[in-house]
């Protein structure tokens, strides 16, 4: 630990393996405050979670499908009236509870997340406990790593997901019906996931502005994609392709085989396409942060 203008600085030997983002900051900055240890999430872990989530949900849906099928078969044989009631309840679940409650919760969460996110980002840049000292490359790295600051990840990622849902919905909504069907978006919902009013629009504008600002700062590290081309290709291309689409294809085949074996008729389980695109978005952000973690190469 060294001292720099009355601020305790991190010594590289004090850091754990998991703190590799802080290690990069130590490499490119003159002084990184000791309070910055363990303040970042690991981008690789975040990307892996985002990649595996759609297929994890798909597995859950499949388990539900088969569990429901077998419980209905048992119920029809032993408790016919209960089976009828069960199917009626399950059919009514989505119809009866109007999405209004969920929309209200989402809007409330979006506003809260944006407020907390702005506060956290301001604190991240203003607080002396989180401000490293160094040249421009140090500030760029610090700003790029901002998306992995723990309070920002939880709050702003939630807000980005909500905004992304609306943007994606609008994007599909504007397409003609025939094109939508051809693209496999025939089950596009009638309403967006959150209401479109002034407050929500303002929140969306703030989130979009923050995202653009972050993207423009992280452009500093774009040239690093050339020497680390293999890393970007594997981490940003091959692994997501396998984890998202490869596993999805494997699950589809497994579902077809199981449906044939157990003679189950009906639609196949699908996860929302926007979830797949969101996973790619998180993957993209994580790849950029990983690329920025090699900034000491400059």
């Amino acid at each position, binding site marked *: 630990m060294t001292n720099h203008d009355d601020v305790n600085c991190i010594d590289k030997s004090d850091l*754990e*393996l*998991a*703190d*590799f983002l802080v*290690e990069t900051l130590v490499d490119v900055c003159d002084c990184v405050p000791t*309070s910055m*240890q*363990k*303040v970042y*999430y*690991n*981008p*690789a*872990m975040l990307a*892996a979670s985002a990649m595996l989530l759609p297929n994890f949900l798909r597995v859950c849906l499949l388990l539900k499908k088969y569990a429901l099928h077998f419980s209905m078969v048992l119920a029809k044989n032993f408790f016919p009236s209960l089976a009828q*009631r*069960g199917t009626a*309840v*399950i059919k*009514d*679940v989505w119809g*009866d*509870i109007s999405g209004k*409650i*969920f929309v209200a*919760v*989402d809007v409330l*969460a979006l506003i*809260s*997340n944006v407020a*907390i*996110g702005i*506060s*956290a980002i301001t*604190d*991240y840049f203003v*607080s002396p*406990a*989180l401000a490293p000292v160094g040249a421009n490359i140090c500030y760029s790295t610090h700003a790029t790593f901002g998306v992995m*600051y*723990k*309070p920002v990840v*939880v*709050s702003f990622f*939630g807000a980005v997901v909500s905004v992304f849902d609306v943007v994606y919905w609008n994007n599909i909504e504007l397409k003609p019906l025939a094109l939508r069907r051809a693209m496999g978006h025939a089950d596009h919902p009638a309403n967006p996931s959150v209401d479109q009013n002034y407050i929500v629009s303002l929140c969306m504008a703030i989130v979009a502005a923050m995202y653009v600002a972050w993207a423009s700062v992280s452009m500093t590290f774009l040239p690093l994609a050339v020497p680390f081309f293999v*890393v970007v290709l594997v981490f940003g291309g091959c692994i997501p392709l396998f984890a998202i689409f490869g596993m999805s294809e494997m699950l589809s085949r497994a579902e077809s085989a199981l449906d044939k074996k157990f003679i189950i008729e009906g639609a196949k389980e699908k996860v929302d396409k926007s979830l797949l695109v969101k996973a790619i978005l998180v993957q993209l952000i994580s790849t950029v942060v*990983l690329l920025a*973690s*090699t900034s000491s190469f400059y």
Partner: protein
Amino acid sequence: MRALQYDFAFNVEFTFGWPKLPQLGAIQFALALSVLAFQLFVKFFIRLYYASGANTFGSTALYNALGQLKKSKMEDIVRANFNGAIIILHYVLTTALYVAIKMDSFVLKLTANRKFNRAEKVYINKREESALRLIEGVEETTLFQKEAHEVNSIIVRLNAEVDGLHKKLQRETTKLIAIQSKLAKAPKTILELDRMHF
């Protein structure tokens, strides 16, 4: 590449442990987690609550009762609460009754099965005993003879009654024929009656 090295060393404590953030950061982190938890809890709780059918056991009634609570009159409030409580009680009692009936019928079935099995055994034993008696040919034959004698006497009595009835029928038939012949000779139409009298 420390980043790639880390990818293969998943640190649970670092990922899920509470981070050592500055005070304000810790508050922000806690708030952000609370919002996320609230969002997930409301969505999943409501979905699970309705999907499990728990709403049919009194909650709908409670919701209706609460809906009526919005009315300003005190009487309505009291009535709504009372109705809601009564309906909930009804649901609870009905469910309890249903369970009790199911249990009772199950026990009854078991008891009936046991009794039937026992009765069947007793019946088979008796049949075996009577078969043995028939082979001996003592009590059963005499009983049969007695019964046959009684049946014969009944048949004789019935035959006599039938003969009496037959004779009665013959007498009535002759009477009927006489009435018919008289009717044949009688005037057939109103015109003939007119001619006879006027």
